[in-house]
């Protein structure tokens, strides 16, 4: 979960097809796009198709001469492309791949699990476990009812004698605790890797 400044250099690297920049770009925005699409589309395959289509269009635009002019607007551009993809999905129009976009499609790096990602996943799992262990039994059961069992939130709050604000604050505290633990672990891992290098 690192951040690279979306500056002119980053944009140039991205447009020229630098693999590491592309990989970072896709990884950075994939989860945001998945969350956005997941709230609007019905199935995982639809979400995945729309995610791919979003990146295809973004990279196509990037490689054009007039491309994206303002690097600081890169995020907003990705969001607007995703919105357009969604609009078309809603209208159920055909999405023929125009000539010239095939190259862009084949060059999109797949944010699959690499060895480093697998370690990051494990670190995340451990941090989540520790975060949940710090919660009271009641709070754990509350989160389980809402996010695992996907019960109606109002009903769950009634059962546990809390209101929606309590649920929000609980999520906020858990997220803060997890983020702190996870980033600490990832920083230690990066420092260890740098020492070896």
């Amino acid at each position, binding site marked *: 979960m690192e951040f690279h400044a979306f500056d002119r250099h980053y944009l140039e690297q991205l447009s020229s097809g630098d693999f590491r920049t592309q990989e970072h770009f896709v990884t950075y925005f994939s989860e945001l796009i998945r969350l956005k699409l997941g709230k609007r589309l019905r199935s995982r395959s639809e979400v995945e198709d729309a995610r791919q289509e979003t990146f295809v269009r973004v990279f196509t635009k990037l490689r054009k001469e007039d491309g994206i002019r303002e690097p600081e607007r*890169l995020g907003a551009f990705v969001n607007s492309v995703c919105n357009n993809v969604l609009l078309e999905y809603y209208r159920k129009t055909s999405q023929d791949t125009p000539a010239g976009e095939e190259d862009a499609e084949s060059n999109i790096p797949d944010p699959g699990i690499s060895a480093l990602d697998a370690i990051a996943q494990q670190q995340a799992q451990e941090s989540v476990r520790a975060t949940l262990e710090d919660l009271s039994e009641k709070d754990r059961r509350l989160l389980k009812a809402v996010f695992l069992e996907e019960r109606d939130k109002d009903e769950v709050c009634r059962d546990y004698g809390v209101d929606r604000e309590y649920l929000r604050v609980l*999520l906020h505290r858990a997220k803060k605790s997890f983020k702190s633990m996870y980033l600490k672990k990832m920083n230690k891992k990066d420092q260890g890797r740098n020492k070896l290098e």
Partner: protein
Amino acid sequence: MDHSEASHLMATEKYLLDELSPAEMEAFEEHLFGCNECALDVRAGSLLLEHGKVELAKPAPRVVPPEVRPSRKVAWRWPSFAVPAVAILLVVVGYQNLVTLPAMKGALAENRMPKLLPAASLVSSVARGATPSVIKAQRGKQFFLPVDIQAQSAFESYVIELQNPAGGVEWSLSVSSESAKNTLPIRAPGVNEAGHYEVIVLGRNVQGQDSEIVRYPFELQFAGAANPEAK
């Protein structure tokens, strides 16, 4: 929506909880895609929930029922059978105060006194061809089970089960990997049936899958009673 509005609104939490209105959601997403801090926050929240579902799906060692508040919609009214119902209640309360509670206090006092529990070493019964250990206890009374677990890194925690002569599970106990480093002094609840029992030790991995590690068979006999023949 700018960053301070998003923070004030707890937009990240509301986004993850699907509590934003459509307009708020669009406004937050427009901000989110361009704000590293909010993007990191949402991605962290998403990661927490993704991995949290795996952790929360694991069975808890003890189940505590949630406090359920009675519905406030029920009107407070006295039904016609209230008087006889109250009378029955008084009889029950009286019986509890005069009979049940004193008996419970006696049992509690007994539990506070130190005493030796029937036990036997289970380790020796694991070897092939070995005669199962014998524990002589009193029917319905507690007995002691010292259990050793060979800790393995593949397992995150352990589960100990007691299998009764019928092959059913008498009870199940979760044990952390930390506790498993030492011999576990298990105070087993009393049972009413003598015969062949087995302590089963299961290792539980991160995915919540159990694997049998070892079984400790033993014969439970009741002191002063006829016992079934050992198998």
